[in-house]
């Protein structure tokens, strides 16, 4: 069984672009499950349902949960307590990792930590998994924390120290909604015909919050 773990940011990008229904199509040929954690459910369904501007978007994601396109970790017997404790541990470590002006910066929050935690738990169970995350900090912590340190230094104009060993996150795999729509396009799941469809899809993810550069998009188009 394979697992795709969705962070709030990727679900938001897909929903705001009217592409969220693609998940149902992608799930059909997928040998596994699409999971969201409780914190991600709160950020993408429960909370926006109380905000008029985003209520409809939240309902669309809720429908995917009702239809079991998206599922909760309990559906594969992941213990809620274990997940919560693992997320807490990740939050504790990551939030004492980067120090500037003698102060630790709190860089991620519950939802993001819960996705990392779920990935680590699945990895321990030898279940192949990938996190779909569009915001860049979570991805950078896993793949290249040294780049995040450099980013902080360039933006804050001060020395930043990386005080923790974050290599325990290094094996986590990340993709973005951009790669997801790329796969959907290659699988022929996109019904649009006219114009440069792949180009518009990739830029649409970028302009709704996916952390992907123009350079990366242009390279993806050439593949």
């Amino acid at each position, binding site marked *: 069984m394979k697992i795709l773990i969705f962070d709030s*940011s990727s679900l938001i990008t897909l929903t705001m672009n009217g592409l969220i229904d693609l998940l149902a199509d992608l799930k059909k040929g997928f040998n596994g499950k699409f999971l969201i954690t409780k914190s991600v459910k709160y950020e993408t369904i429960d909370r926006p349902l109380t905000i008029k501007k985003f209520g409809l978007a939240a309902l669309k994601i809720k429908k995917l949960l009702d239809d079991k396109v998206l599922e909760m970790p309990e559906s594969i017997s992941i213990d809620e307590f274990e997940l919560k404790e693992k997320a807490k541990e990740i939050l504790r470590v990551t939030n004492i990792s980067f120090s500037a002006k003698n102060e630790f910066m709190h860089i991620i929050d519950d939802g993001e930590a819960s996705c990392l935690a779920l990935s680590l738990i699945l990895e321990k169970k030898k279940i192949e998994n990938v996190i779909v995350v569009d915001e860049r900090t979570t991805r950078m912590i896993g793949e290249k924390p040294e780049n995040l340190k450099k980013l902080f230094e360039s*933006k804050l104009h001060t020395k930043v120290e990386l005080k923790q060993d974050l290599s325990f996150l290094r094996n986590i795999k990340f993709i973005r909604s951009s790669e997801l729509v790329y796969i959907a396009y290659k699988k022929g799941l996109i019904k649009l015909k006219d114009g440069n469809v792949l180009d518009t899809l990739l830029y649409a993810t970028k302009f709704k*919050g996916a952390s992907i550069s123009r350079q990366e998009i242009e390279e993806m188009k050439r593949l």
Partner: protein
Amino acid sequence: MQEPQHILEVLKEVKEAVKKEDNIKLKELSNQTVHSSSIHQDADCIMVAVIIYSLSKIIERTNYREYPGWNNFFSSFMKHINYAIIYLEKNDIDNFREELGKIRREINKLTGSFKKHIQDVFKKAEINKASRIYEHGISMEKTAKLLGISIWDLAEYAGQTGISDVNLNITLPVKKRIKLAEDIFR
């Protein structure tokens, strides 16, 4: 409260910039507090950043001055800034916070479209400041929580900026990431 001396200096410069109607300087001053906001994630610092940015927009939009409530609103706004400076000089943080809170409450006294415009200015200032903190490297969810805004608003706004075009963000070659996606769907 973190860096009170820095905030005090910024607020004094705000007064001067307002006198000169220098909205660009006001935006710069607001950005100065974003560095501190990113490191310390101090609520006072963040509130000051939002208020200064809002002030820059309010000054920039000269048509607001035609609304009947303008004079009262603007003079009250600046009165609370002045008091905030005085309290900060005395290291009276509670009353400093109270004065900043009063600025937000002044909006409730407004009516009609002027009230809606000013509410909108503050809301957009929160999203703008959130975007700047996210740009500094703090995660989207954490930043949204700091500013008390929805992650949806932040994602939408951040997508319109150049944040994602920074080279340091590229943490894996394009081909490798596509391969990850292809492998999981194989």
